[in-house]
C-alpha cells in the first residue's frame, strides 16, 4: 500500500559505482569533521565537507538521470531545479547577511530546515504511488518503522530548532518555561507518538503518520521551552545530532546507503560534541536538558547592606590613565550591548598613551562557545592580545586595572572559594587578584547562573553601573579630555 522510493531490487553495475561514490563523500565528511576539530585546519575541514556534499549531490543527480533513461521514468527536473534555486538563494542570503552575534540562532534555523526535509522525504515516500517506483521489495514492516522514526525525529528537530531560534532572538522568552506535569508532559507525548506509529503500521493507515507528525511538532516545542535561553547552543547541537539520525532514517526509507552513512556519522559526532559542550560548562547533558538552569533576568539579588564602590566614567578614566597594563575581560553583557567597537576604541586611546591593553577570554564567556573571539575579531582586535584562561590568570596579580565588561559568572570567585556554590569547580578568571578591578554592568543583577558575586563587594572593585556600550564610550570621552 505504501509505495517506496527505493532503489530497484537487483542493483545494476552503475548503482555499485554510485554507492562507492557516496562512500567517498562520506570519507570527505569524516576528514572534514576531523579538520573542524582543530584550529589550524578548521576552515579547510569545512571546505572538505562541502566538497563531499557537492559530490553526493552530483552523484544523486546522475542516479536520477540514469534511472530515468534506463527505466523510462519521467523526472520532474523543474522541481529539483526550483528547490535548489530557492533554497540556495535563501540559504546564501541568510548566511551572508547575518550579524556575527546572531550566528547560533541562524544555525538553529538551518538545522530545523534539515530536520524538516528528512521528515518530508519520508512523507514523500508514503504518498508516492506504485507507478513511479520500480519493481519493488514488498513493503516491509522494518521500512515502515524507519518511516515513522524519520518523521518523528525530523519533525521534532524542525519545531525544536525554531523554538531555540526564537529563544535566542528574544521572540520567545529565554527563561525556562515550566510545563504542566513537568517532564511527564513530554513523556506522555512520546507515548502518544509510539501509539500513532503502531497504528499507522499495523492498520496500514497513512493517517497515523500525519498524526505522528502533529504530536512531534508539539514535542519539539515543549521539549525546548523548559530549557533556559542561554543553554540553547547545547540544545542546537543536540538537535543537530538528531537531524543526522533523521537523515539516516530517511536513508533507510529510500534505501540509500549514502544517506545512512552520512546521517549516522553526524548523529554520532554531533552527540559527542553536545556532551563536550556541556562539559565545558562544567555540567552534565541531562542537567542542561532537564534542570531548567539559567534563571537569567531574575531580579537583583538582595545584596543586603553590603557596600559597593560605585564609580563614574570619569573615575574609571582616571585610573586607566595612570595604569601601565590593562586587561579587558569581556562577557555576555558586552555582546548584548554590542560594545565591542567601543571597547576597541577605548583600547586604541589607551595604547596612544602607552598603556598595554590585552584581553582575557574565558572559554564559556558569553552564550556560545567562542562567542567573545568572534565578537572581538569583528571589531578587528588583533589576535595576539587575546589571552586564554591559562595565560591570563598568571597576569592578573601584576595588572594595574582589570576592566570587566558585562561579564559576571566567569569572574565569580565563589567558583573557586565556596564549595557550596552551584558553579563551584568551574575555572574562573581571577580578576580579584588585580590591584584595581572595574566592573561595568547595569545593576547588581546576577548572570546566567543566577547567583551573587562577591567580587562586586571587594574594596579593590569599582562598579560602573550602566549599559556597557554607553559606559565605555563615556570612559573614552573622559579619557580624551584628561
Amino acid at each position, binding site marked *: 500500500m505504501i509505495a517506496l522510493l527505493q532503489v530497484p531490487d537487483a542493483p545494476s553495475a552503475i548503482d555499485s559505482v554510485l554507492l562507492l561514490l557516496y562512500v567517498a563523500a562520506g570519507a570527505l565528511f569524516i576528514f572534514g569533521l576531523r579538520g573542524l576539530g582543530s*584550529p589550524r585546519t578548521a576552515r579547510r575541514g569545512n571546505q572538505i565537507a562541502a566538497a563531499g556534499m557537492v559530490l553526493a549531490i552530483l552523484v544523486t543527480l546522475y542516479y536520477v538521470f540514469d534511472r530515468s533513461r534506463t527505466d523510462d521514468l519521467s523526472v520532474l527536473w523543474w522541481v529539483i531545479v526550483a528547490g535548489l534555486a530557492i533554497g540556495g538563494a535563501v540559504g546564501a542570503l541568510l548566511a551572508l547577511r547575518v550579524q556575527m552575534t546572531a550566528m547560533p540562532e541562524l544555525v538553529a534555523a538551518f538545522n530545523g530546515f534539515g530536520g524538516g526535509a528528512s521528515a518530508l522525504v519520508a512523507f514523500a515516500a508514503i504518498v508516492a504511488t506504485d507507478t513511479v517506483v520500480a519493481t519493488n521489495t514488498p513493503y516491509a514492516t522494518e521500512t515502515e518503522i524507519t518511516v515513522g522514526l524519520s518523521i518523528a525525529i525530523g519533525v521534532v528537530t524542525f519545531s525544536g530548532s525554531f523554538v531555540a531560534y526564537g529563544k535566542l532572538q528574544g521572540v520567545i522568552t529565554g527563561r525556562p518555561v515550566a510545563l504542566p506535569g513537568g517532564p511527564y508532559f513530554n513523556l506522555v507525548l512520546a507515548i502518544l507518538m509510539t501509539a500513532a506509529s503502531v497504528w499507522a503500521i499495523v492498520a496500514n493507515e497513512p493517517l497515523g503518520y500525519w498524526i505522528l507528525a502533529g504530536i512531534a511538532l508539539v514535542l519539539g516545542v515543549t521539549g525546548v521551552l523548559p530549557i533556559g535561553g542561554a543553554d540553547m547552543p547545547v540544545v542546537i547541537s543536540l538537535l543537530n545530532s538528531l537531524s543526522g539520525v533523521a537523515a539516516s532514517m530517511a536513508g533507510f526509507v529510500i534505501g540509500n546507503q549514502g*544517506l545512512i552513512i552520512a546521517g549516522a556519522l553526524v548523529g554520532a559526532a554531533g552527540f559527542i560534541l553536545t556532551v563536550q559542550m556541556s562539559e565545558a560548562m562544567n555540567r552534565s547533558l541531562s542537567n542542561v536538558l532537564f534542570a531548567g538552569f539559567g534563571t537569567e533576568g531574575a531580579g537583583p539579588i538582595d545584596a543586603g547592606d553590603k557596600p559597593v564602590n560605585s564609580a563614574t566614567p570619569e573615575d574609571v578614566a582616571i585610573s586607566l590613565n595612570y595604569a601601565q597594563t590593562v586587561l579587558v575581560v569581556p562577557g555576555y553583557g558586552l555582546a548584548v550591548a554590542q560594545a565591542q567597537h567601543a571597547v576597541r576604541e577605548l583600547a586604541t586611546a589607551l595604547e596612544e598613551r602607552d598603556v598595554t591593553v590585552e584581553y582575557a577570554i574565558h572559554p564559556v564567556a558569553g552564550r556560545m562557545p567562542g562567542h567573545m573571539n568572534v565578537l572581538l575579531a569583528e571589531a578587528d582586535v588583533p589576535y595576539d592580545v587575546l589571552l586564554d584562561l591559562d595565560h591570563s590568570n598568571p597576569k592578573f596579580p601584576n595588572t594595574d586595572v582589570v576592566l570587566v565588561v558585562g561579564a559576571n559568572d566567569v569572574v565569580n570567585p565563589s567558583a573557586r572559594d565556596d564549595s557550596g556554590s552551584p558553579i563551584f569547580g568551574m575555572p574562573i578568571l581571577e580578576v580579584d587578584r588585580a590591584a584595581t578591578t572595574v566592573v561595568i554592568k547595569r545593576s547588581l543583577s546576577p548572570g546566567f547562573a543566577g547567583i551573587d558575586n562577591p567580587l562586586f563587594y571587594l574594596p579593590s572593585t569599582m562598579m560602573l553601573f550602566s549599559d556597557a556600550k554607553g559606559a565605555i564610550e563615556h570612559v573614552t570621552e573622559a579619557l580624551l579630555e584628561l
Partner: protein
Amino acid sequence: MSPEFIQGIVVFVLAAFVGFEVISKVPPTLHTPLMSGANAISGITIVGAIIAAAYADGALAIILGLLAMVFATINVVGGFLVTDRMLEMFKKKPVVKK
C-alpha cells in the same frame, strides 16, 4: 528483515562508530563552528529530497518534494557558508598560544 535493511544497519553502526571516534577533545572556542559544520553535513538529506522531488506525482507529492528540496538546500548552502564565515573570523585567532 530484508538483506538490504540489515546491510543498512551494518553501515549505520560502522558509520556511527566513526562519528563517535572522530570527535576527540575539541577546544571550546571551536564548539560553535564544529556544531555549525556538522549541521551543514546533516543536510545530506538533500540526497533524499532530490529523489523524492524527481519522482513526485500528484499535487501533494510535488509540494512535499519541492518543500523537501528547498528545506534541504537551505540547510546545505546556508550551513556551509555560515560556517565558513565564522571560521574566517576565527582565523584571526592564534593557532596555539605558547
